[in-house]
């Protein structure tokens, strides 16, 4: 299985999108296999027995799990172009910190907005806006979180942009009003082919979230 790259994928998952962006940034040819999460493939269960989740990157038969772990692996395995991290250890630590922040604070908050209702949802909107403001402050006047070049933190966060329509619709608020700088950053990222090819249309995600709410809430 010399040089085969398979991504076990799920189209609306912002975590899977990170892996797609990373692979495209490096110009890696890969086979994306769409999973049915209600009926997980034997390959998924075998390659991620601990969590049984997507994304899973299978490179030359060897599985890598957890999206930010996949992004770091892709950066190291294809280290010849488009580095995702600065070269100095402090810059790397800062990038890892913000990637971790997105996973810890931003991710939980956004789920409450489209996946819950009532008080829980309202709390989600509040937490989301707080997290957005913190991220906006961190971005500052830089074109990307990494500075002049698109990198790890940009990859960690930009995939959630495909869900912004859903957050605004179901949370009943305007993200642009809260953070015009973040929207400007997102649109800048979307100009990159690796990003625009890897994110689904916002309308499709709104429909997906609506279906979820109909079936679960």
């Amino acid at each position: 299985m010399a040089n085969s790259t398979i991504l076990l994928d799920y189209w609306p998952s912002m975590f899977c999108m990170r892996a797609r962006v990373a692979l495209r940034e490096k110009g890696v040819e890969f086979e994306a296999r769409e999973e049915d999460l209600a009926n997980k493939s034997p390959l998924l269960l075998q390659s991620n027995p601990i969590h049984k989740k997507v994304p899973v990157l299978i490179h030359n038969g060897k599985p890598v799990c957890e999206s930010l772990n996949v992004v770091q692996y892709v950066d190291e395995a294809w280290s010849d172009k488009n580095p995702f991290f600065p070269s100095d250890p402090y810059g790397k630590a800062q990038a890892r910190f913000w990637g971790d922040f997105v996973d810890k604070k931003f991710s939980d908050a956004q789920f409450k907005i489209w996946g819950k209702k009532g008080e829980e949802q309202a709390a989600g909107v509040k937490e989301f806006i707080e997290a957005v403001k913190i991220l906006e402050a961190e971005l500052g006047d830089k074109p990307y979180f990494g500075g002049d070049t698109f990198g790890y933190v940009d990859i960690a966060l930009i995939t959630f942009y495909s869900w912004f329509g859903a957050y605004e619709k179901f949370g009943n608020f305007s993200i642009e009003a809260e953070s015009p700088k973040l929207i400007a950053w997102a649109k800048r990222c979307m100009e990159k082919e690796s990003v625009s090819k890897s994110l689904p249309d916002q309308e499709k995600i709104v429909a997906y979230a609506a279906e979820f709410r109909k079936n679960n809430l």
Partner: protein
Amino acid sequence: MANEVILLDFWPSMFGMRTRIALREKGVEFEYRDEDLWNKSPLLLETNPVHKKVPVLIHNSKPVCESTIQVQYIDEVWSDKNPILPSDPYQRAQARFWVDFIDEKMYDAQRKVWGTKGEEQETGKKEFIELLKTLESELGDKTYFGGDDFGYVDIGLIGFYSWFHAYEKYGNLNIESECPKLIAWAKTCMQRESVAKSLPDSEKVIEFVTEIRKKFMIE
């Protein structure tokens, strides 16, 4: 300010222990400052404004937050000895995966073992033992999680060992009978000076947990 290293920490924190071990593995001189978590220092609030948590590593006045990020930083700055992460990308991904697993699952499960009672505690105990068995199975017959050399996953997990007697006392557990290989691994790690110096005595941790339980009336 050539190589000034300060660690803002809290002595029973299994996360702080990771950073202490990493610094000692590399032979780095550092100033340890114990925080009162109920009265956090201005320096802590200033250097970790986002999470306001320990540990915070301050290297030449620049703060690094989150224990796993600190361990990786230490490995990269003091790269001349005792590598903590492997050099191969796939092995590195495996190491990160297991530390992520520990971070995601261990803290909450162990908290239930000593910090709750009744059904919640029973559920917590079950989850906790299952987690340890998963880790034990990953360890297999290797000396350390990384193989022959002490490394990232060992550092990620060993701090919890100082809490094992507290879990056994308040959870009414016998961890050695459930996971003998894991206990053997822990004892091997404890033979390293970096680890022995960085973990508090089990007795002190039990005292600490007893106090916390009283404070939060978990009886």
